[in-house]
């Protein structure tokens, strides 16, 4: 890791303060400056950091910290607790519709990991006894359909495609009919990557949503995303309405502060973390682990 961990930094600050026994407001301010820098280094969005630090300050200047024998540890504990709270305290499972099939729709920026994650999700649902169908609604990217067919083949899950000459909404509708006919109780729609500011392409997603009424729209976010994560999440959520988030590429050494940003601006749960290119590299998201990771602890 390129930077000292927050714990190290705290230890430095507080070792000089130890003899004092008590913390002053100024001490807390210094500590919170380190928290702020650590969060920014971890790519948490600037506005999110500001509000977060303000909230913590209010707690940290209270009795429990100032009078404590280990004030440094106390501040870290509060920061961690608040982070976990912000990240969503509980893990959040996928939901299923009463009527079959349950339809999930994968959306997100270009290259975030939608197609790969579509297959990962299908693989894990298949393991739990579902019969998934994958739907190739990316009619733009070169070889996107082939890519979905290949990963579908790797987990032995069927892929519905109508080539690249039909509208995605029509493909999605036909896919659901096909699922009904063939007894597929889960349908996962892979869509093309798009920019949150591309009105036409966002309109396409709205059209699909209105026609097929998916159980969940899952925003796939690259964990390495920087400050822009809030713009992306906010736009996707406002324009289409998302139900959950999947973080990808967490097998790198990114702190993954974008997780916090996305969660803070959408208030939607992060449901899965993806940790590699293999189709088994997906796990349920644990907020508290992510909190420690962002803080570098």
């Amino acid at each position, binding site marked *: 890791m390129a930077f000292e961990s927050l714990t190290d930094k705290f230890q430095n600050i507080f070792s000089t303060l130890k003899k004092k026994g008590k913390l002053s407001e100024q001490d807390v301010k210094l500590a919170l400056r380190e928290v702020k820098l650590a969060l920014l*280094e971890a790519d948490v969005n600037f506005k999110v950091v500001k509000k977060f630090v303000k909230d913590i300050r209010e707690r940290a200047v209270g009795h429990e910290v100032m009078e404590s024998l280990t004030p440094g540890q106390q501040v870290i504990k509060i920061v961690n607790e608040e982070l976990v709270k912000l990240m969503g305290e509980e893990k959040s499972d996928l939901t299923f519709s009463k009527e079959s099939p349950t339809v999930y729709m994968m959306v997100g920026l270009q290259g975030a990991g939608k197609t790969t994650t579509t297959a990962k999700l299908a693989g894990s649902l298949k393991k739990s006894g579902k019969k998934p169908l994958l739907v190739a609604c990316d009619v733009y990217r*070169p070889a996107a359909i082939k890519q979905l067919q290949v990963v579908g083949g790797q987990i032995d899950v069927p892929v519905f495609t109508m080539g690249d000459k039909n509208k995605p909404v029509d493909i999605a509708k036909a896919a659901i009919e096909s699922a009904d006919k063939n007894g597929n109780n889960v349908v996962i729609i892979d869509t093309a990557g798009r920019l949150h500011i591309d009105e036409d392409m966002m309109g396409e997603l709205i059209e699909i949503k209105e026609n097929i009424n998916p159980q969940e729209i899952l925003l796939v976010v690259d964990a390495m995303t920087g400050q822009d994560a809030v713009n992306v999440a906010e736009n996707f959520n406002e324009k289409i309405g998302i139900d959950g988030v999947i973080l990808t590429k967490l097998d790198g050494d990114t702190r993954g502060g974008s997780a916090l940003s996305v969660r803070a601006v959408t208030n939607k749960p992060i449901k899965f973390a993806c940790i590699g290119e293999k189709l088994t590299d997906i796990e349920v998201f644990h907020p508290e682990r992510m909190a420690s990771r962002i803080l570098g602890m």
Partner: protein
Amino acid sequence: SSFTKIDEDFYEELEEALIVADLGVNTAMTIIEDLREKVKENKIKDTAGVRELLMEELKELMKNEENLYEFTEKKSVVLVIGVNGVGKTTTIGKLANQYKQKGKKVILAAADTFRAAAIDQLAEWSNRAGVELISQQENSDPGAVVFDAVQAAKAREADLLICDTAGRLHNKKNLMEELRKIFKIINREYPEAHKEVLLVLDSTTGQNALQQAKQFKDIADITGIVLTKLDGTAKGGIAVAIQTELNIPVKYIGVGEGIDDMQQFNSEDFVSALFEE
């Protein structure tokens, strides 16, 4: 904005703007410290003047030397590397098209033999650009593909051989070693060619991009950066941190998914965009 007085709040606001553009805390602080000095030296008295100076300093920092594109005038092997999904394959399609249109003989090598349908994707780009593709089966050895492609480039006297590689995270030892091997093969088989190593970075990436640049630089001498997806709302400010710390220039920017959506980097435009809302 709202500031008319040069005070702490004003400097803080400037620093914030840099952080929001993804320059990172360290780079932003360093730049603002330098700025304070220069404002004193030059006896600048108004905030507009300070802003202007900041822009000038950044433009100067990011300004490229003249000879950055000389690889396009030589017999060159262009190795395109980067983490997953940043836009390597698409960039290769755009590059191939641009230089084919300028009358160059371009050959592409499909050395991403790993990702599902990566070869088909590059094949489609080679069709669009109208250039030749050297490829093997999925899951074959990427080094063997590059070896073949180099022989083809030599035999056909290609101007540019552009090699696609699989996306790989910089912290994966095995995959990075594989890249080192590819680089070795190019050097061994085609020593007389100019080597151009382009690291592709997604402009939406945050501080991790600096880590990426460092680790990839250890494997192969990166000669330039391609900053993709600047058509979104991300600013790509991490390129400033990379320039500051590693002195690697940005050579191209990606501004869309179409074959013509690539431009040579322009520091004026880039720096102006850093501060746009």
